[in-house]
């Protein structure tokens, strides 16, 4: 296992390096941020002069070289928009995004697993119909639409939950549902289908032939088997959560990475984009490795190679 882990860890640096280059090149092609940094009525001379002052008129290799050198020293540079450390800005926002992602994951799992199991155990019932519809619709509804609707219903009309921002547990409910619905739908579908498949396996019959309660059979024998695919997907979805949170954070004014990133991309604020991508990429890679390990722990048939 340790050797496996070591091999996996060895793969991280090249991946992060490729990610860094990809982003740099993309942003470089996108052009420099000078025009967007100045007022809309700035004159061409002002723009050219400002461009020179910031060093954006240097050739690509100089900019890239400087950039990489700084990066190797662990310096992501200062944000063009905010003038402070890009990495600092990213790390400052990270907890809020993680909080939101975790909450949505918890809600997603809390809904999906019971729903998936019950619908698999009682196929072709009302609850199964409900679960199936949920698992399809949840993926077919764009989350910005869902978010705005939730605000209208729960905050404006019913006034039971706050509209936006942070401050209490209540504040996280709507954004977490918005972000978690698609994921929940995916997990429900997966739990249902893998449970359906597993419930027809021979070892389920064996377990029942032992005289175990059906619920015990479902939970102890069937569910444990279905966990393998479920956990894999759940964690892979966690990566998608970071992406999905961009829009959700914007709608709910959630002070996470999402807003920072979107703003940075528009403003071509390379240091922030780079730091944010670096941090999220590292997290995703870490999660992937964790998933791999979980996968192997849960399913003894898979060996660490």
């Amino acid at each position, binding site marked *: 296992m340790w050797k496996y882990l070591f091999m996996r860890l060895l793969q991280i640096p090249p991946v992060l390096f490729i990610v860094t280059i990809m982003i740099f090149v993309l942003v470089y092609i996108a*052009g420099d941020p000078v*025009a*967007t*940094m*100045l*007022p*809309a*009525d*700035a*004159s*061409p001379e*002002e*723009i050219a*002069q*400002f461009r020179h*002052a910031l060093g954006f008129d240097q050739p690509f290799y100089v900019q890239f070289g400087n950039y990489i050198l700084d990066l190797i020293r662990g310096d992501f540079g200062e944000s063009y928009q*905010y*003038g*402070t450390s890009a990495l600092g800005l990213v790390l*400052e*926002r990270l907890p*809020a995004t993680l909080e939101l992602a975790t909450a949505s994951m918890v809600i997603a799992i809390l809904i999906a697993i*019971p729903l998936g199991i*019950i619908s698999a*155990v*009682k196929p072709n019932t009302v609850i199964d119909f409900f679960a199936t519809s949920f698992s399809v619709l949840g993926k077919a509804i764009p989350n910005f639409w869902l978010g*705005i609707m939730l*605000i*209208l219903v729960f*905050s*404006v009309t019913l*006034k*039971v*939950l*706050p*509209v*936006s*921002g*942070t*401050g*209490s*547990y*209540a*504040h*996280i*409910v709507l954004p977490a549902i918005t972000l978690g619905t698609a994921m929940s739908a995916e997990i429900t579908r997966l739990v249902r289908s893998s449970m359906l498949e597993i419930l027809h396996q021979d070892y389920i019959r064996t377990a029942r032939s032992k005289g175990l*309660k059906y*619920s015990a059979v*479902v*939970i102890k024998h069937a569910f444990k088997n279905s966990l393998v695919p479920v956990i894999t997907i759940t964690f892979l979805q966690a990566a998608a959560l970071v992406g999905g949170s961009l829009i959700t954070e*914007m*709608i*709910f*004014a959630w*002070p*996470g990475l999402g*807003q*920072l990133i979107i703003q940075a991309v*528009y*403003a071509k604020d390379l240091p922030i984009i780079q730091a944010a991508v670096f941090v999220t990429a590292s997290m995703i890679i870490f999660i992937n490795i964790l998933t791999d390990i979980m996968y192997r722990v849960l399913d003894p048939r898979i060996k660490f190679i």
Partner: protein
Amino acid sequence: MRGKFSTLSIYALVSILLLAGCTTTSKGATTEVTKEEDKTLIISLGPDLMTWDIHNHTTTTTEAIHVNVFDYLLMRDKVGEIQPHLAKEWNKIDDTTVEFKLNEGIKFHNGEDLTAEDVKFTLERVAKDDTLRSHGDYDTIKEVKVLDDLKFQIITTEPDPMLLSRISRQASGILPKDYIEENGWDHFENSPVGSGPLKFVEWKRDNQVVLEANPDYFGKKVTNVDQVIFRAIPEDSTRVAELLSGNIDIVANVPPSDWERVKSSDNSQIVNGPSNRNYMIFLRTQEGWPTSDVKVREAMDYAIDDQAIVDSLLNGGGTPSLSRVNPGDIGAQEELYGKYNYDVTKAKQLLAEAGYEDGLTIELSGPTGRYIQDREVMQLIAGMLEEAGIKTEMNLMKWEPFVELREQQKFKDGYLIALGSSFFDAGQSLNYYGTDRASSINGYSNPEVDQLLSDAETLMDESARIEMYQRVQDIANDEKPILPLFQIDQYFGVSKSIEYETRMDELIYIPDIINK
């Protein structure tokens, strides 16, 4: 086998309860919050504050917060007239020198006196450091000469009739020299100190800026609230929802579609007023473009029903105008304000005269999500032009690529934009008609206009200067290298418990807000 899922059902029940639990705690939490913050004014302008470095941003929403923490030497009132502020009087010494005298006893939030040295420090920084984003607006300042603690002179490189406008707008707050020099800029940006009516408490990025009343303020104090919070809520519909559910007192940029809803609610109202921002279309005048023919430009002007746009898209929240210089700005040609040309037959006739009996096709670019209803305005204009026989292809894009398109002159026949004028001076807004500036935009060139503009730029005789600018506007109205469409209003959603009036400069000055 059925009904044997007690464990599962308990699990399901627990999760439902958990969710319900969250809901109930929320109720508690929200009521608590509102009680505790009874004397707090909560405002959302949309985006977050960019930075506390007043010289290194260009956004009005950030300035709207800064203006409450830092004081300008002179300040415009609600209608745009320049009034004394930090400086109680000023005299023109010669064409390039103005002498100011500060009010006595003004203190920064940290207790230090605000002196002429601080003014020198602040203005010379932005005038000399060309990496600052506001540098371009201050580069006419050559030196600030300190005479004594309260007296100083601003010396410009050449006669600058716009000097007073320069120092009474964005980025002209006065900073505490000693505080910054002792602690450094990083420290200042994290805990800024100014002299204004509000003091900095905390800034949670992309979340909120918390300010508290400054009881020692030299001017009009903020008395009816203890705390002011500026919340960052980028999504329009969310902001309106917060207003309607009573969590926020003032929200900026309420979309027209929500005006009725806000008006008809129990707790909120719409407050609107003019802004110094106008929608306009820049048209190419270089050879090779159909719009180089003044008849085509005129035809476009006649094809667009400015009032209809204002009525249908802005619910009447704007005023058509044939000039982009609005009344209240120095040099405005008021005869052109409130007027617009609309006559489709005439437009068609003009087109025919220009040789386009069978119509023509042009492409207009425009930003989306930047100005009120920008995307819709563009689509409506395209529809109107089409009626007159000008098939219009739209090239709509986000603000940032649009800016680049403009800068690199990649747009085709023209583009739609809504420019503001923070100087309240035609000298700034008419600059676009000069050959120099226009060469990088639409290639418009008129020697007479050039002459008038360059003369006015350094002319210290105000009435003569105004006349020159009015003449420029008349010429522009004849030649139409730019089609001014209409001045737009600003719309705030405001809680009924608050009395609020908009300012021409789109800022929010807390001492003017009355809590009923």
